[in-house]
C-alpha cells in the first residue's frame, strides 16, 4: 500500500503531460513576484528612510509601517486586501469597488514584504560607519548626495544576503495567491487534480519545480553577488 503510493508519487509522467498548462502558471508566480517586489522595495525604502530620519514624526511613521506589515501573516493580509478592503472602499466612496485577484495579490504581498525589506534596508543603512558620513559632510556633501554616493552603495552590499532571503520568502509567498484565484502553478495543479484525481504526482511535481527553481536562482544570485560584496572588505 505504502510502496504503491510512493511509486505513484514519484511517477511524474502525469505532471509532465500537463507541463504546458502547469508551467504557464509559473509565469503568474513571476509576475506577482516581480510587481510585488517593486512595491515592496519602494515602500520598504521609504519606510527605512523614515526610520533613520532625524525627524521624530517620520521615524514614527516608518516604525508603524514596519510593525503593521511585518507582523501581518501573508494569508490574512491577502484575504483582507481582496475581500475586506474593497468593501471598505465601496462604503467610503459610495460605489461598488472590486480588485482583480492579481491586484490584490500584489498589494498584499507588496505591503507585507515592504515591512521585512524596510528592516533589512535600515540595518544596511545604519551599518555604514558614522565616521564616513562625517567625512562626507566635512567635504561639503549634502544629505541626499551622501545617501546616494556614500551610504547606499555600501548599504546595498551589506544588506544583500538578507534582502536575498526576503526575496526568496516573497517568491515562496506567491504560491498562496492561488487562494484568491490568481492562476499560478499551484492553482492550475489543483484544477488538474480535480480532473485527474491523482494529487500525488501533480503536487509533488509542483513541489519539485518550486524547489529547483528557488534553490537554483538563490544559489546563482548568491554566488554572483558575493565577489562584488567582498571586493571592498578585503
Amino acid at each position: 500500500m505504502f510502496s504503491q503510493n510512493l511509486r505513484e508519487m514519484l511517477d511524474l509522467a502525469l505532471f509532465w503531460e500537463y507541463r504546458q498548462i502547469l508551467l504557464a502558471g509559473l509565469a503568474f508566480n513571476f509576475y506577482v513576484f516581480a510587481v510585488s517586489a517593486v512595491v515592496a522595495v519602494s515602500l520598504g525604502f521609504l519606510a527605512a528612510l523614515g526610520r533613520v530620519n532625524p525627524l521624530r514624526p517620520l521615524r514614527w511613521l516608518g516604525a508603524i509601517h514596519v510593525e503593521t506589515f511585518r507582523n501581518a501573516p501573508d494569508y490574512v493580509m491577502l484575504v483582507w486586501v481582496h475581500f475586506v478592503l474593497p468593501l471598505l472602499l465601496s462604503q467610503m466612496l459610495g460605489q461598488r469597488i472590486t480588485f482583480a485577484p492579481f491586484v490584490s495579490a500584489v498589494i498584499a504581498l507588496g505591503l507585507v514584504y515592504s515591512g521585512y525589506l524596510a528592516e533589512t534596508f535600515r540595518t544596511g543603512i545604519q551599518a555604514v560607519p558614522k565616521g564616513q558620513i562625517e567625512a562626507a559632510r566635512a567635504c561639503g556633501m549634502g544629505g541626499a548626495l551622501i545617501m546616494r554616493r556614500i551610504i547606499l552603495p555600501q548599504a546595498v552590499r551589506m544588506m544583500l544576503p538578507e534582502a536575498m532571503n526576503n526575496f526568496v520568502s516573497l517568491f515562496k509567498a506567491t504560491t498562496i495567491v492561488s487562494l484568491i484565484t490568481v492562476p499560478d502553478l499551484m492553482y492550475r495543479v489543483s484544477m488538474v487534480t480535480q480532473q485527474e484525481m491523482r494529487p500525488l504526482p501533480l503536487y509533488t511535481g509542483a513541489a519539485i519545480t518550486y524547489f529547483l527553481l528557488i534553490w537554483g536562482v538563490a544559489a546563482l544570485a548568491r554566488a554572483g553577488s558575493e565577489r562584488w560584496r567582498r571586493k571592498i572588505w578585503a
Partner: protein
Amino acid sequence: MADAASTPPCVEVVDLHKRFGPLEVLRGVSTRVDRGSVVSIIGASGSGKSTLLRCINYLELPTSGEVRIDGEAVGFERRPDGQVRKRSAREIARFRQDLGMVFQQFNLWPHLTVLGNVVEAPLRVRGMPKREAMELGRACLARVQLSEKADEYPARLSGGQQQRVAIARALAMQPKVMLFDEATSALDPELTGEVLEVMRGLAADGTTMIVVTHEMAFAREVSDRAIYLHNGLIEEEGPPAQVFGDPKSDRCRQFLAKLLH
C-alpha cells in the same frame, strides 16, 4: 598693524561655547588663525581640542559664539539691517567645502578606489569636469606620494597610506584651511612618520593648518603658534618656543612634564 585689521584672519573663533547636555566642553574660546600659518592645539583628552576643531567646520553645532572664515560667520548671517539669520544646512555645507578635515580614523569610503575617494567631492560637490578632477586628484595623490595606489581600494592600504589618502582627499577640495584631528593617533608608531612627513610638507608649502595633536615634537617644530586647552578654555597660547619651552601656566607645564616622562 593697520594691515592686520583690514584683512580678516583666515579662521576666527569668537567666544565659542559648546555644551553636551550638562557638560560644557568649550567654555568661551577665542582665537584667530592667519592665512599661511600653522596653529597646533594641545591638551589632555577631554580638554575640548577635538570639539573645538569640529565646531570650526560645524560638524558640531556651537552652543554659542562665532566661527568666521575670511571674516564671514559660518553659523549665521548678519543682514545689512542688523538682523541676524541662522544659516541653513546647505549654506553651512558650502563653508565646509573650504575647510579640509582629516580624521583620526581616516574615514575613507571603502567602496571607492583611492582616486575615487579623492575626486568624489571635487566632482559631485564642486561640479568639476571629470578630466580636470582626475588631473587634480592625481596631483593630490602625488603630493602625498601615493600616485601608484590610485586604483587600489582603501582596504588594501596600510594605516599610514590610508591617512595620506585622506589628506589628499581633503586637499582636492583646495581648502582655505586644513583641519587635522589627531591624524596620527590611530596609527602604529612606525607609521606616524610618513603622515607627519606629508603634513610637514604642507606646512612648508604655506598651507593654513590647524592641528590637534599629541605629537609634541612635531607641533613644536612645525607650528607658528601653539594653544594649550584645559577644561574648555585656552590656558596658554603663543609661539611654540614659549608654550613648549617656557609656559607661563603651571597646568601647561605639568601637562608637558607628564608627557615627557
